[in-house]
């Protein structure tokens, strides 16, 4: 009966039993894993011998718990494991290959949505195209918030002191510059002017890739009473006048159709996508880009089927154009909207309005739109990666709406701030393609830790079983196995790994298969350590009495090796396992750092540091490597501490005289 029960014991139960025996002693093992309990058991409850024996493992466990630092390290590692394996499941918007050109290389900052308190009661306009937002109060004062230091040079986009006190009438922000029109009609610009974003420096006049600011604007400014719209694109700016005159300047490489807008005087509205300037000419029957075939299909909803623009409009006129980076929302003269262009994958659909409700105003961010209806309700739709298209439902009586690049703001009739929603900023900064470093650290941790853990499991499976065989059987088997182990351990690890992973790279594998191959290679190269310690332990254990007893009882050799000896040497394997895990993680990060292990876009703690090998990048974008390497070192220290402490507490020699 008992024998049958033992046979049916599955592997997990067995491991749990070993664990209990190891950490809590034979008493608990008997108590919890009792097999085939009978009535006589309860009767024969004589003082159990095993109750008085404190197992060495229990003693070690007690000694471990006494060391505060080691306990903290243990908890930290467990927490890290939980975080990196559980949190990614909740990061629904995360994607490995996410890139955002307007948000790259940003330092840690969470103020992208915090409107300055002085501005909150007096908002005239808010605009943004990238990491910072600019706001204008009715009193004509300019405020800037968000990431104000940009790029490798740490250029400041705060308003310069000398024009701080000038009353502004209009203000707009590009990705790295701000343009303002003063009440005197003069045009002010600050931020980067490398691509002719403002001013008339010699480079912008000479370069064919740059359209410099028109000279009469630069010298005399504009008639501020007749300015209809000031808007900024990626590195370009447009001013639209009441009479349809339009002034455009800036980087022509990002806006190759800029020439088509120069000197035109029949423009009703103008805006910038990421690659095109889009406008409406006086015919108001389509999107004017100067290029045929662009934006000539329209639809009412993101999910709807597109129609030819001419058929769609059916005589209606376009009154307003609002462009995100790739799509355009047109406001028609009957209060409905038309959508054209490409929409990103995770979009919120256009809301269905109630009877009698129509769109009064629409503003576009970089991916999303925010719309105000005649009843004062606010809706957002479009790209929702930073939750910028999820407008709070409780907004009433909004009079004006504004959008930042990834934010929306609602303002009431007095110009008072009601609410804002969208993107706050990156807590640990962004990398060189504009991805969130915190998210990548978490997902990279999952990959790095998985690789480490699986590699160690493979090492253990190969090393321990070969070590057991070698140690227990001895003779030529022993010699053969240990010779092979010797050859494996004499190979220099990193160079061989480099070569093998470059071989793997030649095969056509999916990313996950590649990852698996890397784990296998790590495991296959690392097993000799386990084989050596297992064999050494076996040689000791073979001479011990319980093995002799088992042999005398005629237990099969293989059963003695795996069932009698293995559970007793598990402590030593445990120590080696922790240290090998840290080592495997380090090898993986090293390989990925060199570009041979886990490759972009899959994140790993190693390949996130690759860019930091460039001294200039390491200096200017410190957040791109400090956090990642910090956590890498921290986890390494914790795991090594655990391993060291387990070894210390297991070793009677070292713990007795402490």
């Amino acid at each position, binding site marked *: 009966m008992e024998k049958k029960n033992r046979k049916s014991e599955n592997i997990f139960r067995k491991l749990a039993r070993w664990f209990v025996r190891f950490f809590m002693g034979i008493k608990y093992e008997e108590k919890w894993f009792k097999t085939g309990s009978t009535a006589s058991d309860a009767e024969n409850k004589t003082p159990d011998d095993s109750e008085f024996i404190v197992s060495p493992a229990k003693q070690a466990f007690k000694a471990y718990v006494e060391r505060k630092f080691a306990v903290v390290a243990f908890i930290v590692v467990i927490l890290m494991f939980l975080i990196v394996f559980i949190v990614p499941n909740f990061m629904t918007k995360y994607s490995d290959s996410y890139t955002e050109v307007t948000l790259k290389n940003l330092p840690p900052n969470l103020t992208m949505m915090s409107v300055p308190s002085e501005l909150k009661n007096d908002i005239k306009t808010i605009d943004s195209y990238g990491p910072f937002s600019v706001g204008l109060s009715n009193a004509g004062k300019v405020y800037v918030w968000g990431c104000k230091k940009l790029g490798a040079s740490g250029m400041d986009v705060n308003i310069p002191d000398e024009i701080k006190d000038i009353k502004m009438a209009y203000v707009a922000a590009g990705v790295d510059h701000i343009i303002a029109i003063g009440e005197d009609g003069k045009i002010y610009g600050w931020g980067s002017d490398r691509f002719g974003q403002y001013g008339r420096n010699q480079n912008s006049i000479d370069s064919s890739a740059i359209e410099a600011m028109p000279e009469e604007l630069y010298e005399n400014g504009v008639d501020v009473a007749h300015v209809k719209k000031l808007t900024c694109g990626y590195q370009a700016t447009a001013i639209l006048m009441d009479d349809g005159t339009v002034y455009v300047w800036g980087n022509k490489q990002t806006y190759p159709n800029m020439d088509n807008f120069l000197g035109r005087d029949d423009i009703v509205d103008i805006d910038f996508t990421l690659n095109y300037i889009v406008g409406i000419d006086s015919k108001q029957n389509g999107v004017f880009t100067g290029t045929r075939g662009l934006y000539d299909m329209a639809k009412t909803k993101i999910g709807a089927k597109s129609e030819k623009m001419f058929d769609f409009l059916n005589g209606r006129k376009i009154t307003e154009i609002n462009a995100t980076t790739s799509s355009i929302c047109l406001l028609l003269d009957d209060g409905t909207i038309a959508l054209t262009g490409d929409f990103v994958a995770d979009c919120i659909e256009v809301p269905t309005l109630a009877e009698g409700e129509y769109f009064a105003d629409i503003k576009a961010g970089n991916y999303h739109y925010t719309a105000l209806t005649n009843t004062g309700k606010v809706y957002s739709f479009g790209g929702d990666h930073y939750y910028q298209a999820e407008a709070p439902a409780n907004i009433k009586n909004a009079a004006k709406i504004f959008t930042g690049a990834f934010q929306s703001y609602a303002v009431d009739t007095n110009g008072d701030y009601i609410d804002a929603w969208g993107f706050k900023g990156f807590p640990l900064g962004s990398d060189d393609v504009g991805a969130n470093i915190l998210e990548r650290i978490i997902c990279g941790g999952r990959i790095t830790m998985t690789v480490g853990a699986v590699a160690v499991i493979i090492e253990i499976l190969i090393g321990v079983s070969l070590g057991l065989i070698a140690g227990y059987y001895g003779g030529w088997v022993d010699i053969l196995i240990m*010779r092979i182990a*010797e*050859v494996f351990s*004499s*190979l*220099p690890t*990193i*160079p*061989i790994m*480099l*070569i093998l992973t*470059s*071989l793997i790279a*030649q095969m056509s594998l999916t990313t996950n298969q590649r990852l698996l191959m890397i784990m296998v290679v790590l495991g296959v190269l690392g097993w000799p350590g386990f084989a050596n310690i297992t064999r050494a332990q076996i040689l000791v254990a073979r001479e011990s009495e319980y093995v002799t007893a088992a042999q005398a009882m005629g237990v099969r050799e293989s059963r003695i090796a795996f069932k009698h000896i293995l559970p007793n040497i598990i402590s030593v394997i445990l120590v080696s396992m922790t240290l090998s895990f*840290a080592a495997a993680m*380090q090898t993986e*990060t*090293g390989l990925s*750092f*060199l*570009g*041979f292990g886990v490759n972009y876009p899959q994140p790993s703690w*190693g390949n996130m*540091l690759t860019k*930091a*090998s460039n*001294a*200039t990048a*390491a*200096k200017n974008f410190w957040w791109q*490597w400090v956090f990642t*390497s910090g956590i*890498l*070192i921290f986890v*390494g*220290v914790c*795991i*090594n*501490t655990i391993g*060291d402490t387990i070894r210390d507490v297991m070793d009677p*020699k*070292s713990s007795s*005289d*402490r």
Partner: protein
Amino acid sequence: MGRYIVKRILYILLVFAILTFLLFSLYRLMPANRAYTDAKTEMQGLKNSIAASERETKFDELYLKYQRLYGTDTDNTLILYLRWLGLYPYYDGNFNGIFQGNFGHSYEYNAPVVTVIGPHIRNSMIIGIVSEIFILAITIPLGIKCAVKRNTHFDRGVQAFSLVGFSTPSFIIYILFILLFSSILGWFPVSGMKTPGSNYTGLKMVGDTLWHIALPTICLIFSGLAYNIRITRASMLDALSLDCIRTARAKGLSQKAVIYSHAWRNALIPLVSVFVGGFFSIIGGAIFMESMFGFKGMGLLLFNSTKTADYDLIMFIQVIFVFIGLVANLVTDLCYGLVDPRVRISK
């Protein structure tokens, strides 16, 4: 003793043959076909002088010619391997392999691999030996001192340093050092082996080179400290708890004699393999250091050749590594005999 060494050398040769054969078979899987590319190149040159109908046959002819020249006119891996070794004749009846001194041809550098590798090995060995000597000179006294004064503030401090250092991947140490000494303090150049555009000679050249390799050397030394301190201390601790130490102390020997002639001799035994391994791994170069500093050593060579898929070069580097690994094993065993009188190798 002599017999033992001969036996070990024969064993090394056997393992070497098996391993290189395995590696060779692995590289056969790679999509590199020198004969095909060369035939293609020559074909490009001849294109206009040959009629279109004859091009295919001409190409096949050229392809076969190059295959025979490079000895790839068969699919039998064993024959290819023996040709590579120089034990099987090529199509024209000549032997041309490792035994004849032909280690292969680097596509990337368009030169025999031996001439490519030469300067790199030299560079790696110079910087490696210097840093290894410094590492040992720092870590051995420090490790001994920590073990002797265990649990003092000094020991705890060094232990904390070595724990953090041991857990830090070497490339992070290099990033920090480059940032500190090159970017912020500006004491040393960021990378390279000589001032760009300079043409120094004599003493000035030596000075310039030294200035360039100073930071890599410091980095190598620093990244090697933690591990060596840890193992030296651990093995010294084990040695200090031996019975013979208690006896020596009971005899009234001086502290110095106890530590250096009794404990250290015992502690050295497990360390031998680490020290010997450390010296032999120099030849493999320090990949992280070299790729970050652009130091022209074996690591950088391997790194670049794996990126450009220069298979003959990788194969030869691989062969060197395997060979060095096996020789290091032999030397370690011999050193055990030197260090530990109980080990009688001649037996």
